[in-house]
């Protein structure tokens, strides 16, 4: 057999072998049995207002957003509310670039373990405490990472505390997340200002 041909075949075999092994290794290392997807539904702002009023909740949302971003979707199930903002019109709760996930929470701030930078501050409307992670793992981020805040927000009107996960996806980062956190106000106040 021609020497050049032999070298070509040998090189090809090695390349294919490496590709095959790396593909299998990737598959073996990344096996996953993910849970069933979000069963809630997208609702309108008016419907959301009605729910909030009925349940006597104070929902806190950002009064200041990065340039070009606006509310694109509200996703609701009785135990979990997801509010998303985006600058491309994306309303999908997984891929919009700014998201707030609100629930009752199973532990208090005092019972929690400080997983990130501690935040504690007070506004005329709320007492806000929690943690911020500059780089958190997330499957739905194009880079695999997001900036994430876990907050316990106690409304000074109702004295109810709700658990918030607030995150930003790339290209937004920790600076935008901090601005969002420090601009949180009750939803009614934000819409009144607009």
């Amino acid at each position, binding site marked *: *057999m*021609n020497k050049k*041909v032999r070298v*070509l*075949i040998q090189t*090809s*075999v090695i390349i*294919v072998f490496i*590709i*095959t092994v*790396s*593909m*299998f290794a*990737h*598959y*073996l290392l*990344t*096996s*996953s*049995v*993910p*849970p*069933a*997807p*979000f*069963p*809630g539904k997208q609702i309108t702002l008016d419907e959301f207002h009605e729910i909030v009023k009925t*349940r006597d909740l104070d929902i806190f949302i950002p009064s200041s957003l990065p340039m070009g971003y606006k509310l694109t979707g509200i996703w609701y*199930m*009785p*135990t*979990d509310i*997801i509010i*998303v903002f985006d600058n491309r019109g994306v309303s999908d*709760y*997984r891929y919009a670039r700014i*998201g707030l*996930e609100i*629930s*009752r*929470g*199973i*532990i208090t701030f005092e*019972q*929690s*373990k400080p*997983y990130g930078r501690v935040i504690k501050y007070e506004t005329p409307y709320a007492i806000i405490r929690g943690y911020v*992670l500059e780089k*958190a*793992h*997330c*499957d*739905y981020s194009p880079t695999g990472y*997001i900036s*994430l805040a*876990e907050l316990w927000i106690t409304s000074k009107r109702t004295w109810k505390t709700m*658990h918030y*996960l607030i*995150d930003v996806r790339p290209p937004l980062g920790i600076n935008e997340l901090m601005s969002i956190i420090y601009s949180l106000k009750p939803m009614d106040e934000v819409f009144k200002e607009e």
Partner: protein
Amino acid sequence: MRNIKLAIIVLGFMLCSAFLIMPIGAQDNLLTEADPYLYAGYYFYNGEVNDAFGVSGKIYTISPAVPGINHFAQWVNVMISYRNHYWIQMGYIKDLLHRGLIPVFHIEVNDAWSHRFRFISTPKPQVGVTYKYIIIPAYEDGKWDCIILRGESVIFETTMETNPFDCDDVQAFTETTIGEINIVGTHFSELSYFNGRGFPLWDHHVPRADSPYYLKEKSHYEFYAYGGG
């Protein structure tokens, strides 16, 4: 000339093989994007107030044929965040590529730190036996107690830490990656939620069954599932 033709044929064959293999490695991303998993089971979420801080349920062990690189699994799950795809889950899985012909117990965590998947090497679930799976807050440094019981005996127990430490919903499902897997025999019972004091049975549920699977809803806390194959 004959050698060159042979070389081209061999090279072509190898490239084709590589492209056929490629979807195996790419599967994870593809699955995340398109969500082609098939589910049959219950969400708990339909309550106005979420008292669920954990979950438990009995699952009868079956061992259906699983073709190729697919998997079949049955589990209970604590959903930490739907938006960010964070959860902690325990059950059993049959996955030929990873563990061969018999099912194995598994625990999976996906959270702000990372994705962790743990096959439990011993004990092994026995086909035809019902096990009880419990995920309950340990109230210690953000940890969950993950327990498997056979009858009254604890056969496996470990703690898993998650960040965040929360529960937005609980679930109990059979899951496959392909409708050719026949899930007849599926039986979940005594589905319970932890409310901080005890484990009441689920008093509401929302069913989900993706075609070709079907549910037989016996009560809020018990169901059978069948179909596929």
